[in-house]
Structures are given as C-alpha cells and as structure tokens.
C-alpha cells in the first residue's frame, strides 16, 4: 500500500473506528448496528410490531424522557447565569430576559418543558393504566414509574421558586403550607424543606440544590432502572395475540433448577436467564429489526417534542411577575397548576384536601399492580375485562382534572367562585 493510499484511507478508518458498522443492508448488519453502538445497544435488536404502533404507546414515555433531556440541557445553561440568592435571583431573571444571549428563549423552553413533562408523565401513567400494562411481570416497574411521577412533580415544584418573583414566592408559600398539614411530621417536614419558618433565603438555597442536583440525580437513576426493567420484562406490554405462535417446541428453553450444579459447580451465563431463550434462526415471529424501525420512530418523537417546545417557547413567554413583596400577597395566591386540584380540596378541608386524600390516592396508585392481580386485559386500550379498573381510574383522573380546572379558572379573590367569562 502506498503512502498516498494510506492517507486516502485515513478518513474512512477514523469513521469506522468510531462507528463500527457501515450502514447495514442485511439483517445481520442491522442486528450488528444495534449491538455495536453504545446508545443503540440499550435497545433490543428486534422489537415486537405492537411496540411500534403509534396509537398504542402514543410515544408518551419517550416524550417524557426527551423533555427531561431538554430540561437538563436548558437547565445547565441557565445555571451559568443563576444565583440562588434572594437579593440577586430576580435581577438575574431580568438579565436573562434583557441582555443574556438566548436568555429569554432558554427560560421559556425550560419553563414550558417542565410543565409539559408533568403533563406527559401523567398521561404516560394513564396510558399504562388504561392498557393494563402494569400487570405481571411489570408490577414493580409501575411502582418505579409512580416514583418518577412524584419526583417530576417535586422537581417542577422546587424549580417554581427559583425566579423569586411574586408568583414563585406565594405559590411555594401555599404549597409548603399544604405540606405542613401532614399529621405528626407535617411541621417538621415543612421546616426541613424551608429551613426557616417562612419562605426565604434558606428555602431558596434548599430548593435550588434539590432542583439542580439531588432530584435530577435521583430521576436519572430511576429512569435507568425503569428502562432496564422494560428490557428485562421482555419489552413493552402487548396483548397475547401480538406474539406469533412459536413453532419450535418448548424444549428449546432450558430451565435451570436451583441447586443443580452443572459442570462441576459453576453456571454457564445463560443459566441465569429465565424463560425461553432469545430466539435464534428464522423462527416466524411478529418482530422487526430495531434498525431502522424503532430508531426512526424514536427520532420522530424526539424531533416532534423538540419542535413542539421550540414553537411554544417562541410564542409564549415564561411569566415573571413583580419582585417578591412579603407584605403584599396576591389575592388569590395560587399554587402551580398541577397542585391547584389540591389547593381546591384544601379550601374545603386543610388536612383531608392537602394530605389525607392525596396521600390515599398516591398509596392506592402505588399499590395498583398488587390490588388488581388478574392477568387478563393486557396490551389493549380499554379492555372489556378491565372495565371496572379503567372506569375507576377514569373517574379519578376526571375528578382531578376538573378540580384543577376549577382551581385555575374559576377561583378569584378570597378563593371565591368567579366566572372566567
């Protein structure tokens, strides 16, 4: 090989050293592409066709993930300008709006992505419930998902305080006051959260640290567990019909019985795999290669999410109200919209509205897979077999949404009923 040929070869050498596989044209190549790329190997090589049905998942889980990524990126950029100090925070907001390059846009994106993520996670939860996807073996992943939902709410809530304007200050005052109604630990919990009797410098610092470090780290960890379990649980839930009949006899699966020690006391790696082995060979099944089917779908959801947030961030400004004035509460002082249902309930009874009912709701939701143990009705929207469970869930969802709407639009000064028209 001449020197010139070697030099000519260099770019493609560099390329192949980074991307091990050329664009695939064969099934083997498609499998290898998924397998040899760090990001793609998080996915299975092949996915069930049902997983790719847009109307089955509506991409809500992915949207939540991408929103989280947008929030992380925009949030890190915002961190370069923000100071969690009661004397500086608001001025920094004015700087972001006035003189920082792309400052307004970043803040808008972060704000709307945060609201959108709360909504997307909640809708994702509704999707999983209404398709019965939390059933065996995915019970615990539902619990992980619930924890992620609560973390999302808490992240959004802690971020709400950071602009240090009237909206932030009084929403957090109301929100933490609700937390204070919890029995036994309520007062202590509020104090630990605020670091003071009222919302002030300590609270701002605590909320900031929670918002930029503690909660994102926990969310990342929980997201990893969430995804890992999806793969270990055999991909997304699907109805039994979606599985093609396996023509090979069951004998292909090797059940390792605990206690039996082949090969003189050590297990082969495959010995730990439960259930049927990954199918090899040309067994007829209902799956397609992840490359390009799954990845294209994911890319589509990503671009759609980004486009949506960009458009909203361009046309709608994130609110920035008056600087904090402790002597002058707005009337009414409202919590963020996702807590307005709670605030509405609190207006009837502080304990039951703020702690009792939401506590029971969260507990029941956490325990859903262990209460509803029938294996039927998985993988289908509004399955006939699940009419009771689905109706109860819809009732719960509709009541909560109605309460939020009342709290948002129909409540005026002194929390009296007003017509928005």
């Amino acid at each position, binding site marked *: 090989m001449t020197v010139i040929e070697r030099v000519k070869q260099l770019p493609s050498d560099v390329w192949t050293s980074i991307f091990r596989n050329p664009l695939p044209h064969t099934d083997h190549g498609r499998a290898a592409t998924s397998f040899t790329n760090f990001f793609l190997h998080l996915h299975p090589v092949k996915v069930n066709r049902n997983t790719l049905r847009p109307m089955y998942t509506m991409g809500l889980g992915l949207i939540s993930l991408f929103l989280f990524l947008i929030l992380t990126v925009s949030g890190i950029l915002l961190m370069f300008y923000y100071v969690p100090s009661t004397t500086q925070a608001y001025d920094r907001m004015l700087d972001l709006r006035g003189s920082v390059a792309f400052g307004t846009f970043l803040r808008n994106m972060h704000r709307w992505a945060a609201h959108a993520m709360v909504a997307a996670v909640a809708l994702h939860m509704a999707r999983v419930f209404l398709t019965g996807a939390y059933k065996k073996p995915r019970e615990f992943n539902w619990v992980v998902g619930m924890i992620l939902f609560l973390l999302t709410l808490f992240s959004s809530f802690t971020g709400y305080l950071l602009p240090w304007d009237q909206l932030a200050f009084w929403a957090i005052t109301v929100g933490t006051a609700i937390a204070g109604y919890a029995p036994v630990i309520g007062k202590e919990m509020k104090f630990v959260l605020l670091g003071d009797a009222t919302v002030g410098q300590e609270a701002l610092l605590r909320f900031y640290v929670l918002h930029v470090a503690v909660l994102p780290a926990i969310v990342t960890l929980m997201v990893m567990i969430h995804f890992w379990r999806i793969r270990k649980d055999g991909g997304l839930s699907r109805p039994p019909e979606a599985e093609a009949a396996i023509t090979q006899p069951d004998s292909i699966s090797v059940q390792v019985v605990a206690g039996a020690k082949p090969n003189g006391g050590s297990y082969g790696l495959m010995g730990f795999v439960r259930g049927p082995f990954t199918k090899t060979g040309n067994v007829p099944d209902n799956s397609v290669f992840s490359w390009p089917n799954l990845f294209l779908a994911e890319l589509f959801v990503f*671009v759609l999410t980004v486009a949506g947030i960009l458009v909203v961030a361009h046309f709608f400004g994130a609110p920035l109200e008056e600087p904090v004035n402790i002597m002058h509460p707005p009337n009414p002082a409202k919590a963020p919209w996702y807590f307005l249902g709670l605030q509405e309930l609190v207006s009837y009874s502080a304990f039951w509205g703020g702690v009792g009912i939401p506590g029971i709701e969260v507990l029941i939701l956490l325990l859903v897979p262990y209460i509803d143990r029938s294996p039927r009705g998985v993988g289908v929207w509004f399955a006939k077999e699940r009419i009771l469970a689905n109706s109860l869930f819809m009732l719960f969802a509709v009541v909560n949404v109605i309460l939020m709407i009342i709290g948002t639009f129909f409540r005026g000064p002194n929390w009296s009923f007003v017509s928005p028209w």
Partner: protein
Amino acid sequence: MRLALAIASIVALTVHGFVFYDQFFHKWERHQTAYFDQARSRATSEAEKAELADRSPKIEQIMVTQFGETRVDRCVTCHAAIDDPRFKDYSQPLKVHTYSAAMGDRMVGGKWERRHKFSDFGCTVCHDGQGRGLENFYSHGEDPFWPEPLLGFVAQKEWREEFKKKLISKDYMEAACAQCHTQENFAGTPNLNKGRQLFFAKNCYGCHKIEGLSDGTLGPELTEVGKKWKLDYLWESIVDPRANLATSFMPKFTLTDDEVKSLVIFLKSRHGLNFNETSLERYRAHLGVAKLDSSAEVKPVTGDLKVIGAQLAKDRACAACHKIGEVDGGIAPDLSFEGLMKDEKWIGDHFRNPRIVTPDSIMPAFRFTAHDFDAMTAYLANLKTPPKLESPEATYKALCLRCHGEKGNGAGPVSTYLDPYPRDLTKSGFFNSKPKERFLKSIKEGVPGTSMPSWAKVMSEAQIAGVFDYVQTTFIKDARRDLKDRKVPEKNPVASSAESIAHGETVYLARCTGCHGRKADGKGPNALDILPRPRNLRNSFFVNTADDKRLMESILYGVQGSAMPPWIDIGLSQNDAGDILNYIRSLNPRR
C-alpha cells in the same frame, strides 16, 4: 412517517431561525448605529470620526452603588446621546438629557457640567423604570408586573383610564428627588412640599402613621407606601377609598386634582428609609417624636388657653373634617357653637378618646399633650355664640341639614361618617307612633351616645317647636294621629337577677342576633340590609339614658318605620321582654 418527520424538522429549523433573528437584530443596535452615524457627521476632528467609526453597537451600562442596592442601568444602550450636547434637537432616544441650572448644572467654560452625573447617579434613581431591561416594554416599566414604571412618563395599561392622563407629568419625579433632598420645603420639590402640607392640613396624619411624621393608628401605615404602590393606586386610594377596600371608612375629601397630585407625589416619596438616612437616624427620629410630646408637657405655653386652643385647632386641621364657622370639612359634626352643646368635661373626655362618649365614632384618638387638649377644650367650650336664626326653615337648613339631609331622609352630606345614622325624618310611621314630647326632648337634650347634640342653648323653646313643626309639615307630612294606648309598664316588671339575665340572653340569642348581632353591637348578619340600622345595644350612653318604659315598648310593640317587629305578637311575653332588658342592661353597667 418520514414526511411528518421532515415537516417537524422544518418547523424546528424555522423556529431556530426566528430565535436567531431575535437574538442578533436588536432595536437598541439600530439606535446606537444611528447615534454613531449622526455623531460622525457632526464630528469636528478626524480623530473623533475615526474613533466613532471603530465603535460597534454593544450593551452599555452604568453601575450605581451609592444609592441602596446596586443598580445596573442599561438605559444608555439606547439613550446613547444622553451626555452629548450636540443632540439637543433630536427626538428620543437620541436626545441629550436637558441641562438645567435649577437642577444644579453649571456652565463652566462654555460647557455644561452636570450636578447629578450619570456615572454617579445612573438613571433609575431619579426616573424609576427597569435599568436592566433592553426593550421599551420592560425598561420603561410598561410591563404591568414592574412596580416602578418611569415616574410621570409611563402609565401602565391596567391603570384606571380616568387617572392615566393625570399621572403623566414631570412633577411626579419630585418623589424621587425627595429620596435625597429630605429637608422640609426643599425648593426643588414644590409639589411634594404642598403634598406634605396637605397631609397635615387635611388631617391625614390623624389616622395614618408615617414614621417620624405622624402616628395615627386608624388607617393603614404609610411609612413605605411609595415603595409598595404605584401612582395609580395612590391616586385611587385618595379619591375613591372604597375602590380598593370595600369596608374602608376613609372619608372622601374634597380635593382639587392639583391637591390630589401633590398628595400622591408626597406619598410616592415615602419609601421608609431613604438614601439620605441611616437606620440609626431613623431610630433617633422615632425617639424624637415621642420626646416632642413629653417636653411640651414640661413647658406649657403660657397665655390664654382659648387663644392657644384656637391656634392649635387651626394647626391641627380640625376643620379638615369638622365645620368650624365658615370652614367646613364635610365629614364630621359642626363645632361652631360647641360650647352651647357640650360641657368642658365632655369635650375633654371626647378628645382623649372619642369612643368613650360616642362608642361608634370614627374620630381618631389623637396623641396630643394634655396641655394641648386642655387648650383646645377651652377653645371649643367657649364657642358660645348662637347662630342667627330667622325662620324655622332657615334653622333647619343651618343646623339640621348637614346630618338629616336636604330631603329630611337622614342622608345629609356627613351622614355616611356617622354611626348611628341620623334619623330619617320622612318615616311617618315612626314619628306618629311616639309622643311629640319625645322628639322635642331629643332636640333639646340631644341623644346621648350618638352625634345628635343638645340644642337647648342654641335655640329657644319656640324655635325648637318651630323646627319640629317644620319637619312635621315638610318631611313627616302625615298629620299626627292619636297614639294607641299601649300597655307598657313604667318600670321593668322583672327584677334583675342572674337567672333573669341568663334567660334574657337565651331569648336574645334565639331572637335578636339576626339584626343586633351576637355581640349586641347592632352588626348582625342582616344589619347591612336594614335602614335605619339596628341599634347598637352596647352603646352605654344611649342604653343607660333610655328608660325602661321606652325600651320595653320598643321590644314589645316594635319600632314603627324600622325593621324592629312587635315581639308581643310573635311569642314574647312581658316577662321575656323584661329578661331581655335585664340582659341588655347587664351589658351596659352604670359607671
């Protein structure tokens, strides 16, 4: 799906385009470029031209550290020619800031030198507005969320339409001047000085506290009012006090627009601690106010108390509310011949705490020295010249109309500030169910615990009869009928005992609270819908002077022309009424 993907990508790209456009094509760059161009064309030396040619638009700012928290004023980013006298005839934003000798600017060697240098003061110290903003909407404070719009230049969209025009005027900037120029009667702030005078002349100080100036307690404290509220709110609160607080009993003062403006400027200047003050000085001032009282007590002014009192009454602006002679504040009772209506003791007691003698009075309890009170009491007690009264009609108009109203319906000009309200003289049902002697007595002796004074020394017996006849024919109209014979005992038939009072309370709580209220203060849930208002049964001066017979009659037979029903018809016995009366009497112990 690929088509949808393509469309979504294009949308994302387009928005990026918009965002970048917004980011790199600012309005302020155009203003600066225009300034460079204009300045270059007017430049005299080549060096200056070259220097201007080298400059490119960038955000300019002034950091101001001397005045409170650090301010960052980026106003000069657009207002680039602010210190360039060549730009005298340009329009904003490329106009030079006016030089004015009145502001302390001096001509030195043919060049103006500013007293308030922008490098020291920045812009927002004097003008307000948002120094960090770079768009008009934000920097000029048009954004309704910004608490400090450009003083006197910007009226926010939410402000009341009828006030907007009145709030646009350079004069409002005096409020900012006063943050440093705190001395009284500073020549640069004529409107503010007038506002300060009005604050005392109109008796605002009587109800409102401003630390270091006044210590009224009846109304909201105004020490930091200028920091808390915008011009619009201040104006509205003065001319329409109930617009912001439905339950406010602040009087509507008769003020010209100019006076309101001066007051607004004065109030806008109240920021609590101003730039010129340290907290230590503020504390000293606070102590000083207290000292003023005690030192005056040690060293009473000698001389005729009446004369001193007259001067004090003038200085303390009694006539901002009351009528004294020709001056009428239009809010509180006529004091022109107070000495004929009240004795010295009553006036003295009333001064120290008006609610001791008139329980529902809104008059503030002023914290003057004992000597001042004595002097003013002496002055008022000696106002003993009865008015000249010709006909009964003229008498009514001169003496009664202010409370009872032109039409006799109890809605006189000052009636809204009186509690209880003046009697509605058109309710013939009421007047024709009571003996005439009672009304003559009310006029002669007044009604204790209310604003109805005793007229016996102001009017002669004949005049009083004449006025009542005038009221009878003009307002009551219905001819007097013979009174029905009612069986009312002269004395309460039930002797007062713990048992009787307890039973009375039970019946009271069951039957009377709807109107008279649980506290018997006449403010029950229905009270607001009823005219005349239910009687405050804790008004000891009234209750203790009304005899058993009158109160028993009111309970048993009701009060015609009011909402009080005849309880004898709805299940109360005479003994029940007696118990209730004992209960009411027990609420008003005789001192």
